[in-house]
């Protein structure tokens, strides 16, 4: 499997290097190159391209190992079969109609390749489910912050996604640009995220609370802040997605599941942090005070809880958790200026699925949303990935608006 991944990577790199000059914009097709293990060209092999309706075109490799463009009708999945006297290879390629991909794909194959084994559905399901669990944990870490802020400050903070992006971008600066070790970068980004949360509270939310503005005002202010911060990040970072780190920890195989080692580390960190937050909420004085404010802020205040101080602490914790989630998300996927905003919508799905205002529900709901998002990619196109997670949100509200663990009175 690892060999296959290496092979695939080499193919991709070759694709980039040899990058075929595009024909006229509306022509679709495949061309390619066949070589042996010593990278010498292989002539005289038959290349066949077929689609759903059977064979579409055929060519024979020339003395340089090249086969000419075999035109196909348009975007879609095609099977490419390469046969010579002692070699047979079959691969499925997809042509996608997007501005970033070529209409004519260059396919480079070596006779030392073996045909990639198509993983069985259960294997792919297992792979996707573990990835989804990973994503779910990331959603949960960020969503618990959202949920705590909702509990103590009483409004849905639409700018919470930008705290996640802040973590991702800070991690990128520290790990990729400054070249710090990934774990150290993650730790520093988390701390800075806490500072960022504190700064938001001091700059916006505390003054607004003092003015006694309404829930609706707070939510609209939060979309304004979200738009401002997101645009500022796009201003500095640009619109492209980039990788988090140059470090490569290799891939680890567990049964049918192959994931980068960084993902397992991320999951480990997530679980530890989630348990830590759970214990903090249930056992520490501040955690108990936080839950007391969520339940009844006025009663908590009369019982001697310093509501303003707890709210401030919650903003710091929420900012730190969001930043950590951003770093891990950057490792899991990539870093971009809108990574947090996209995650925010999945956080909403997780929070509502679990039941607004229940910590354990948020965790369970987030994991369900993460798994749904990743597993559905087996059946729906990857560019509609988030639709699966968001569809869960709408269905839950139709069927059981209080969520899995919520109580009915919370939603009225």
């Amino acid at each position, binding site marked *: 499997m690892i060999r296959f991944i290496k092979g695939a990577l080499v193919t991709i790199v070759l694709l980039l290097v040899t990058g075929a000059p595009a024909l006229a914009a509306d022509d679709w097709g495949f061309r390619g190159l066949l070589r042996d293990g010593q990278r010498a060209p292989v002539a005289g092999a038959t290349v066949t391209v077929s689609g759903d309706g059977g064979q579409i075109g055929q060519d024979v490799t020339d003395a340089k190992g090249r086969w000419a463009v075999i035109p196909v009708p348009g*975007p879609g999945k095609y099977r490419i079969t390469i046969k010579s006297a002692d070699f047979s290879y079959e691969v499925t390629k997809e042509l*996608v*109609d*997007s*501005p970033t991909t070529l209409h004519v794909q260059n396919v480079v194959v070596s006779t030392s390749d073996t045909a990639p084994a198509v993983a069985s559905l259960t294997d792919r399901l297992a792979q996707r489910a573990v990835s989804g669990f990973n994503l779910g944990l990331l959603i949960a870490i960020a969503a618990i912050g959202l949920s705590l802020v909702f509990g103590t400050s009483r*409004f*849905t903070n*639409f700018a919470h996604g930008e705290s996640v992006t802040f973590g991702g971008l800070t991690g990128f600066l520290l790990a990729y640009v400054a070249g710090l070790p990934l774990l150290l970068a993650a730790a520093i980004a988390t701390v800075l995220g806490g500072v960022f949360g504190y700064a938001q509270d001091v700059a*916006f939310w505390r003054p*607004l609370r003092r*003015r*006694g*503005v*309404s*829930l*609706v*005002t707070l*939510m*609209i*202010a939060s*979309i*304004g*802040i*979200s*738009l*401002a*911060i*997101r*645009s*500022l990040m*796009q*201003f500095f970072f*640009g*619109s492209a997605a980039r990788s988090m780190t140059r470090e490569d920890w290799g891939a680890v195989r567990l049964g049918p599941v192959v994931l980068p080692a960084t993902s397992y580390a991320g999951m480990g960190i997530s679980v530890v942090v989630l348990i830590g937050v759970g214990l903090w909420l249930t056992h520490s004085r501040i955690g108990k005070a936080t839950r007391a404010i969520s339940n009844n802020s006025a009663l908590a205040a009369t019982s001697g809880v310093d509501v303003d101080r707890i709210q401030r602490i919650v903003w710091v914790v929420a900012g730190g958790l969001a930043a950590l989630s951003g770093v891990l998300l950057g490792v899991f996927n990539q870093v971009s200026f809108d990574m947090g*905003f996209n995650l925010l*919508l999945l956080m*909403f*799905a997780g929070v*509502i699925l679990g039941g*607004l205002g229940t910590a354990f529900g948020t965790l369970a709901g987030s994991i369900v949303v993460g798994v749904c998002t990743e597993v559905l990619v087996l059946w*729906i*196109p990857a*560019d*509609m990935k*988030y*639709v699966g997670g*968001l*569809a869960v*949100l*709408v269905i839950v*509200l*139709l069927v059981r*608006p209080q969520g899995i663990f919520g109580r009915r009175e919370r*939603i*009225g």
Partner: protein
Amino acid sequence: MIWESLRELITPTTAAYALAAIGLNVHFGLTGLLNFGQAGFVAVGAYGFAVSVMTFGLSAPLAIVVALLLAVVYALLLGVPTLRLRADYLAIVTIASAEIIRFALNSSAFATWTGGANGLYNEYSDWLKGSNPLPSGLLSLGPWTFTANDLWIAVVDWVVVLLVAGGIRLLVRSPWGRVLKGIREDEHAMLSLGKNVNLYKLQALVLGGVIGAAAGILYVQPTSVQPFDFATRMTFNMYTMLILGGAATVFGPILGSMIFWVVMSVTDQLVSLGVDAGLLHDVTQGSQLRFVLVGVALVLLVVFRPQGILGNRTELSFDAK
């Protein structure tokens, strides 16, 4: 330079945004519904119309009907499960659904109909251009020059905007409009008067959504259809213009849209100056700064002047506890 920016006062984009903001005003200003996904309605209208004409070959009037009916269905889908819940839920569900729609329209899965990430070329506005009574060529209007098509589309757009605004003015003063305002001010009081609050909210959601979809049809007539246009930024721009002009007023959204686009045009030219002076990397990067400005303006407006320019603070009480 300032004359060039003032041209935005009457462009079709300003008119389309004004119309969509009028729809949002029915939700937010009049009824107090927190719709964070008006861009979804605009997208439904734009794509509903363009796809009906280009793929299914419907005539323009029929395509308009289809697009508006789709908006009704979409509003019912959003409203039925969420309107009985707390205000947050509608906000969350509308923003999520608007993104679902945009992801789906952007996806290669439906590219046969929607064009995927490339969007759709304008092969659907012949009905409007064909009915143009203006002499062809460049026409000047005051200090500005328009092509005949642009000017004609602008005229049609503004007629639609004024007709809808007039209709809203009548509705606001009708018993129906007073019930909506009552719901905004105190839902329980309206319940105790025997009003079916959820039904009224649903009607308001449908009406505002249909107006949003109509804005979508207007929005794409002078240009092509681009899925990226319908991002959440579009909705947030509308909130900024709505609160700037005055939520819950009839002409607030129109005034807001006009000021918004003039300011955007002025800042756009400042960005170009900044690029020429070497202060900014390029225009795309500079335009991000303008959206920082929009976000900050929205926060300041909603906190310090929630009634906007035309509004009446004592009437509009979304700022009250």
